[in-house]
Every structure is written in C-alpha cells, then in structure tokens.
C-alpha cells in the first residue's frame, strides 16, 4: 500500500464497490479507484459525457479523439459498452440508474450536505455534472483527505461553501476513517491505518456516533 493518502483513500473506496454495479467516478481520488479494483471486479464505469463501459486508458498509438471521459482524458470502451447522448446520460443519473457516484468534495456536513463545486468569493462558473450526480446516484461516496491543504477540517458541522446538494452523501472515506450516514446520523464505522477516534475527532467539526463494527484490515 502506498504512503500517499490519496491512494490509500482510493484503495479503501474500491472495496465499497460491488460486482455488477454501475459507477460514476469523479475527477481526482475517484479516478485512482480502477487501479485498486480486482481484474474480475465487474464494475461498469459510466461517464456522463455519454459512455457506459469505460475501459482503461488507450496505448499512445491507439488514441481516438472521439473517445474521452468527462475529465476529457482519453479512454477505451469495453466489450458490451454503449454510447448515448447527454440527455440520455443524465436521464440515467437523475433517474437513479447509476448505482454509485464516487466524488471528491471541499466539505461534507454531518447531515450529508456536500459542497464540491464552488468556493465563496470565487467565480461560480463551472458545475458540470456534479449536482446531477449527487442528487441522482443511488449511493454517493465522497473520497477526500480529512483536511484541506490549509489544514481545515473538511467533514464539518455545517458547510460554509455553496452546496452542491443538501443531504446527499451516504459514505465518506478519508485517510483516517469511514463515515456512514445511518438514519440521518453520521456514524464513524471504521478507523483506517491506525488512526484513533481522537485523531478523527481532531480532524472534524462534525458530531458523529462511533459505531465501529469492524476495524480496518
């Protein structure tokens, strides 16, 4: 296992995914997840620009300018893939046909509010598919470091950044722990890589229940 917390988070988040699931992976840590999936994980990756069945990046000599993901990186299409237009793609998302969205965030609150598209005082000129994904996907997993680059907790009592959606997050994976929202309450369900409850408490302003059913492997 790498020392890079981003990779540790991706590796843990990969274990959340179940065979047969349709998953949309956001930019950043979520995009590291495929390398931590077993070859037989049987996850179907959806990208909102119009492809179900995203495969690994192509070889340099097999680049196809018509085949990209929503991060505008070149990708491939696996056997059984399907292309569709943007209205159909977001119909899938908004209609609840994407099982899981994994995405990064600036802040997630104890009630599951998520802020991941805008910083106060800066331009709010790019939202892309973020709002559709957090509202539409059946399950929303946030992968992020516990603190911002400024050292501020990102799991918070109340979001101060503009919301992407209220009460939308199901699971949070940081380098310290896994939080799950259960019946409206934030629960610490797993400590990662030797972190303690005190470590988690120090890195959040959110209230949470401690429900450590399993320890980190």
């Amino acid at each position, binding site marked *: 296992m790498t020392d890079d917390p981003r990779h540790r988070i991706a590796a843990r988040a990969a274990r959340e995914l179940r*065979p*047969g699931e*349709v998953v949309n992976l956001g930019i950043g840590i979520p995009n590291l997840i*495929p390398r931590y*999936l077993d*070859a*037989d*994980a*049987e*996850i*179907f*990756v*959806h990208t909102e620009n119009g492809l*179900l*069945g*995203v*495969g*690994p990046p192509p070889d340099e000599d097999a680049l196809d300018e018509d085949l990209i993901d929503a991060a505008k990186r070149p990708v491939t*299409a*696996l*056997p*059984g*893939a*399907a*292309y*569709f237009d943007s209205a159909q793609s*977001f*119909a*899938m*998302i*908004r*209609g*609840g*046909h*994407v099982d899981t969205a994994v995405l990064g965030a600036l802040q997630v609150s104890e009630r599951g509010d998520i802020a991941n598209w805008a910083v106060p005082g800066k331009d709010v000129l790019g939202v892309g598919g973020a709002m559709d994904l957090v509202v*539409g996907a059946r399950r929303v997993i946030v992968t992020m470091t516990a603190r911002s680059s400024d050292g501020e907790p990102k799991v918070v009592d109340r979001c101060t950044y503009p919301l992407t959606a209220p009460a939308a997050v199901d699971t949070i994976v940081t380098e310290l722990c896994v939080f799950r929202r259960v019946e409206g309450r934030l629960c610490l369900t797993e400590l990662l890589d030797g972190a303690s409850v005190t470590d988690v408490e120090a890195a959040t302003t959110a209230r949470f229940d401690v429900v450590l059913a399993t320890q980190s492997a």
Partner: protein
Amino acid sequence: MGTDGTMTALALTSAEEAVAHVNSGDTVMVGGFGLVGAPLGLIDALVEHSDATDLTIVSNNIGEPGRGLGKLLRQGRIRRGISSYFTSNPEAVAAVNAGEIEATLLPQGTFAEAIRAGGAGIGGFLTPVGAGTLLAEGKEQRMVGGVPHVLEPPLRADVALVYAARADRLGNLWYRHTARNFNPLMATAARVTIAEAGEILDVGELDPESIHTPHLYVDMLVERS
C-alpha cells in the same frame, strides 16, 4: 474493472420465473403498439403462471380481444389501465363501462413523455397537448409563452415487461423496426425491468453506437421461446 471483457452477465431466466416478480397490486408497464413489439411470451407467462391480481397496467393498448393483454383482462386481473387507446380492445371498453376496470386516458405523446420522465427522474412536465380539452380536467394548467399548457406527472412502475429483437448477455437491447415504440421508455421507468429477447448474443456482438437500451436499465433477461 473487468478489463478482460468478461463482464457480469445477467442470468437467463424463464418467463415463468421472471413474472414471479409481479405481485398483486403492482403497476406493470407492458411494451408494444398493439401487439407489435409486445412481450407476448412474458404476457402469456403472467396469464398462465402468476396469481398476481389487482394490477395497474400501463400500456398503449389493453391488447386485443383474447390476445396479449386481452387475455389478462379476461381473467379479471386488471384493476386499472393507463393507456392512450383502450378502443382497440372492445372488451376493455366494455370492462370500463361495466365499472370492472378504471381507465386513465392520456394523449399518446403525453403517455410516452410521462414514461420517459418517470425513467429520467423528471418530476413533471408542461405540455400544450390536451389543454382546453376533457383530458386536462382536474389537472394544473398554466400559460407558457401565451400558450396554455398542462402539468403532467411522470409515470413509473413496479415492473416493466419489454420485448427486443436482440439482447446481449449483459442486457443491452436492440429493437427492430416499429417494434421499438414504447419498449425503450418503459425499460427505464420500472423498479424491475424484464426483457424478452428474440435472440440473445454474446457480449460485444451488439454495435455500441446502436444499442437502444443500455444494460443498466435491464434486470432480467428471458429468451423468446
């Protein structure tokens, strides 16, 4: 991610097993324009092997007398129909007039759009169609650009029964000619979508540009016998 190309295939199911997912009181969408594109094998299985009753059927027609959904009608298992054209089955008209089934009539385009909306997570839509007519009675109306519109709710179902000429083992579907009609819409709008396919191909055999229903919409796959 299964980079070897062997993605999870749907288990093939018999029509009898598949329709066991229809429960009494369910809303069931059934594809087809008349009998063209109707999942006749699944309907027959529902008629012969299921006891589910008190059903709400969402289908453009209620079959024809003694054919397709007309069989289910004769069994008295339909409580309500949501359709654009009951008239193609005089027995359905008679059942409505006798108070045996409840009828909700929608303009065909509104019917199609409402199913699409149900599958697409749209909470309602404004259409000019039907405004100023009997079919708008009791519905919220508002002006849009000086034209009266009706606010229509989405349609969703517990189970959708659809027919496709071809499927692959993941559940991707391809429809043929005018047998497409309502099938791709209904496939998106139910909790459980059961597809009856004329031919079931290996994964990768359908052209990815030409798949009409991507597999994430399909829960069960039955081969037409």
